[in-house]
């Protein structure tokens, strides 16, 4: 069996007395799209922050291709090959579309520069559906276009693992279809992706497997249909009485 792309081993994060991530473990295989789901406040984004280095784990280990990355600085982790998008979209407002994407190509896992970085940025803008808009200031773009910029920026580093933090949130139904097919393309391309998502349709269509969290604890893991029908998952989402 080949080595998992990413392993989370008894990862733990506490804020004072609050245990936001409570000894969570799971593996992500090469080329897999793993859904990370759970009710609000269950610790999904915190877990993503531990992987990307935005937060340091209080305990446990995170391995990228067998190499420990837990507790490294965010820029080290990015250079080793973890790229992410943010729950609340974060673009670089004073730069144009092309420069935004180039930021991902220049400093990250794939370090390009000059004409090469520019060409890569153009190619990716085209990929996410923003071809021909290279020099539009991103502050003038719509929400979904800013999300596309963020995705292109993350892809520009050619990451070994891509983290999508509610990338589909806030899109209208038409945009949602576009967004889902975009992620689907990435999956078919063989990208390894972890997506935190509330849009259940997207999880069902896209994910190979999913991990369900509740109150910081992993309560289920497996094929999407199986995981979602586990009693504990139903209880976490709908409350005790309905279970």
């Amino acid at each position, binding site marked *: 069996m080949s080595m998992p792309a990413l392993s989370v081993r008894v990862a733990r994060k506490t804020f004072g007395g609050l245990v936001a991530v409570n000894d969570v473990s799971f593996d992500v295989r090469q080329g897999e799209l793993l859904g990370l789901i759970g009710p609000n406040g269950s610790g999904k984004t915190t877990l993503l922050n531990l992987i990307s280095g935005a937060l340091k784990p209080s305990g446990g280990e995170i391995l990228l291709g067998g190499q420990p990355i837990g507790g490294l*600085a965010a820029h080290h982790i990015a250079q080793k090959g973890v790229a992410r998008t943010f729950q609340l979209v974060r673009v670089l*407002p004073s730069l144009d579309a092309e420069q935004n994407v180039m*930021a991902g190509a*220049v400093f990250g896992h794939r*370090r390009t520069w000059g004409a090469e*970085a*520019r060409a890569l940025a153009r190619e990716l803008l085209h990929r996410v559906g923003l071809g021909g808009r290279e020099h539009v200031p991103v502050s003038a773009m719509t929400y979904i276009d800013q999300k596309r910029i963020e995705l292109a920026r993350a892809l520009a580093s050619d990451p070994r693992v891509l983290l999508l933090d509610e990338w589909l949130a806030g899109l209208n139904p038409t945009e949602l279809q576009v967004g889902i097919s975009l992620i689907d393309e990435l999956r078919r391309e063989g990208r390894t992706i972890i997506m935190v998502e509330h849009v259940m349709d997207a999880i069902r269509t896209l994910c190979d497997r999913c991990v369900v969290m509740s109150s910081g604890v992993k309560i289920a893991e497996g094929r999407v249909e199986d995981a979602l029908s586990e009693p504990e998952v139903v209880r976490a989402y709908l409350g005790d009485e309905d279970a």
Partner: protein
Amino acid sequence: MSPLPFNLTQEELRAGAVGAALVIVAALLPVFDQAYYLALGVNIMLYAALCTAWTLFSGPTHYISLASAAFFGLGTYSVGLGIDHLPFPLLVLIGAGCGAVLAGIVGVATLRLSGVYFVIFTLGLAELVRQLVSWGQSKITTRMGLYVFTDFTEKHIFWMLLALTVLVFITGWLINRSRLGFAMQVIGNDETVARHVGIDTARAKIILFMISGAFIGIAGAICAPRYAYIQPNSAFNPTISFLVVIMALLGGTKRLWGPLVGVIPFTILMDFVTAKFPNHTSIVMGIAFLAIVYFIPNGVTGLIEQARTKLRSRMGAPAVKPGEVQP
């Protein structure tokens, strides 16, 4: 605006030509006057170099450094202590090295802190260095000052400062074209994103602060022969730090040439005030500082840019990229 053209753009060529012409005109000043206007010219050149060097770091990071006097004083003292033993150019390099090392230490210690703490730390540091030098001098040399005798006259100092200013500009331009410059643009926009695309933000800021500190150290070294007699109170004069901030903010720190727009009128104003009302310079500085921060936070160049944007949008043309302050 794009950070990465490897060939010169038309705009860059034009800016280079205008810059070269201005430098030639400025270089001719000592030919026409060797007295009042040259002295004023030296002051303007000094602050042009200092403010541009300060802006290299503070422009993109928005960190206000009040440590300029410390870097400057170290440069001055490098010359003061070594002038009898080593050639002047070497002492200038030592001054640059001292400035860079001090900036590096300050950077490692404080750049992880947020803005306000950085301001206070740099102010306190400059004062600490001054006190340490005074103390060291009284213990070791048992004198309060150092004599610096050279063959340099005012015009030589003017030319050296002009050359330094040019060097700072070229460095700034090269930085803007480099990975470091692009990294600073990303950091200025969103530091979290910067970290997550793989930028070592602390390292980038420290490198930039060291470059800035080195140039300020060089300026101090060049000015040592002008003072002839060096004391801690003049070499590490905190007024230098404050004037640098005021002039740079008056001009605007978004563009490398922004500070120049503040330096020229303000140096002339300060010259006038020092001559006519020597006891009221601090009041003028204070009022100027308040006025700038209240009324033109983006500096004169910021005002010009705003006016241009407004004009263009009124004329129906698409507005240029807005250059507001980043959140």
